[in-house]
């Protein structure tokens, strides 16, 4: 009985747990990437205990892969040596860690997954409790197979109605973050529900859960249903709240939402697109763990079809599987014909390490989840966040553009 997070932990621990309890729980998978693995290795070495189960460890190179310079190459080499020495088979380089976790079947409804990356909360869309932690936590779990958790209170975000044409899950979550504020859900679980969410496809739900952390949340959970089962193509545990007690319920009318834009340098600086249209752009970037999935690319391609971009446009599919599908279906042709650059799957320029760094006074509109100062390069550059449709329309016009003008 309880909220989704209480249900998941109660089932795992085979006893009733409730918000506020501090528990030690087994972890089903522990993920880290090229930025967070080195300190995890150091912590694990100091503990001097064997790895609890190497099959449960997943390491992905995504933040700066292939290595853009020598220092990065040395770090990659160091991690590879560790991986080889300990026979860690779940090592991947074919996309953003969070997309890999989903594609490889490591994000399972009812499971507990931790990751050395704040956007690990993405798998909440599949009814999987997943949350970001620091490197020491990751190293400790390599040694113990467990971690400690404080069961969070839950804010229920109940969304009903139909999103307008040109308005997507990204616009909804930006609007929710504006409503909650950057620390509005700190320590808490967000549960998304309502007929708008039920009608959403899984790729849209993943966009919602991915950005739960931008309101400070520990996780962003969505109950499982037929769509979850179809997406994962296997039998799954049914995860849903039972007589939950929510700390707060927020009702949202989806039909009233306009395309949203987050402007520099906070994710909760959000406005309707009308308030900011025509702002000139130097670069557009479509991709990331938020919006680099196939359907996101398809929406962008619809707008870019038979058009030319008017500013630098970078497209980074979230994984090689997505890239391959986009090649086969012709989306990549559309991007290339439009004058965009398509880069190898991974985090792309989202973390400011490669593939599209911004110079002083430059401005980018992206489908990323964060627009902190200097995240894509110069501290004197600016980042706007929006949906793939808004990003594609803005690329065509070289300025912030309401996608409905081109749809």
């Amino acid at each position, binding site marked *: 009985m309880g909220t989704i997070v209480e249900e998941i932990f109660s089932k795992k621990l085979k006893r009733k747990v409730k918000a506020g*309890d*501090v*528990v*030690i729980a087994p972890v089903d998978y522990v993920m880290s990437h090229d930025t*967070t693995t080195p*300190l995890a290795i150091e*912590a694990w070495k*100091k*503990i*001097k*205990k064997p790895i609890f189960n190497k099959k449960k460890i997943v390491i992905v190179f995504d933040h700066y892969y292939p290595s853009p310079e020598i220092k990065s190459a040395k770090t990659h080499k160091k991690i590879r040596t560790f991986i080889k020495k300990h026979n860690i088979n779940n090592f991947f380089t074919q996309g953003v860690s969070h997309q890999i976790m989903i594609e490889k079947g490591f994000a399972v409804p009812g499971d507990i997954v931790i990751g*050395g*990356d*704040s956007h690990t909360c993405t798998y909440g869309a599949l009814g999987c409790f997943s949350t*970001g*932690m*620091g*490197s*020491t*936590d990751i*190293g*400790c779990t390599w*040694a*113990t197979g*467990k*971690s*400690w958790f404080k069961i969070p209170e839950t804010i229920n975000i109940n969304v009903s109605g139909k999103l307008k044409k040109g308005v997507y899950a990204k616009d909804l979550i930006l609007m929710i973050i504006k409503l909650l504020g*950057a*620390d509005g859900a*700190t*320590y808490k679980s967000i549960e998304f529900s309502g007929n708008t969410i039920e009608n959403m496809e899984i790729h849209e739900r993943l966009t919602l859960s991915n950005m739960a952390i931008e309101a*400070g949340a*520990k996780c962003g959970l969505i109950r499982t249903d037929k769509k979850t089962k179809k997406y994962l193509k296997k039998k799954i545990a049914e995860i849903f709240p039972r007589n939950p007690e929510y700390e707060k319920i927020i009702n949202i009318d989806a039909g009233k939402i306009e395309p949203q834009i987050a402007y520099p340098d906070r994710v909760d600086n959000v406005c309707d697109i009308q308030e900011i249209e025509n702002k000139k752009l130097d670069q557009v970037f479509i991709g990331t763990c938020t919006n680099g999935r196939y359907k996101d690319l398809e929406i962008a391609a619809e707008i870019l079809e038979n058009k030319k971009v008017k500013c630098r446009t970078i497209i980074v599919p979230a994984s090689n599987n997505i890239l391959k599908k986009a090649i086969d279906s012709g989306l990549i042709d559309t991007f290339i014909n439009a004058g965009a650059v398509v880069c190898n799957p991974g985090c792309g320029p989202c973390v400011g390490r490669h593939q599209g760094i911004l110079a002083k006074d430059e401005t980018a509109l992206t489908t990323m989840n964060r627009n*902190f100062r200097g995240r894509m390069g110069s501290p004197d550059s600016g980042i706007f966040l929006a949906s793939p449709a808004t990003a594609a329309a803005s690329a065509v016009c070289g300025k912030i553009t309401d996608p409905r003008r081109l749809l």
Partner: protein
Amino acid sequence: MKAWKIGDDVNTDEIISCRHYPREDNSELGRFALEDVFNEFTENAEKGDVLIAGDNFGCGSSREYAAIAMKATGISCIIAKSFARIFYRNAINIGLAIITSENAYDKIEENDNISIDFNKGLIENFTKNKKIKFDPLPEFIIQIIQKGGIVSFLKEKDLDDMTNDL
């Protein structure tokens, strides 16, 4: 112990700018902690002092350098109205004592002389002659902090050893 006071939403970049790391010896990071936003603290804080903060202390990145830098200043504790979640965990994991208390922020002024009893959940403000209660941290978290962090803790014990205390 002397109290220092800072406001809301202190982020991980303000705690320690990335221009100072990585470096060979992380204990040097203490010399730069909060330098851009609270230089008086950076220059003058002494071993054992306490930092009192507002809401959402440590927001932003999951990087551990922020917690490492605060610990390296030598302060004995951070008391905040609230902490960003990942900073909170990172602090405990590296053995930096932290207390969440709404009251403390209102009842302690900068330069007040205070003491903290972690087991009893009691802060004493000698300057103002006030006692402030806080919810004590769970026993196993106190143990982790006392051991100097979760790595040292796990060298001797398994997490399961603590199950009975929860």
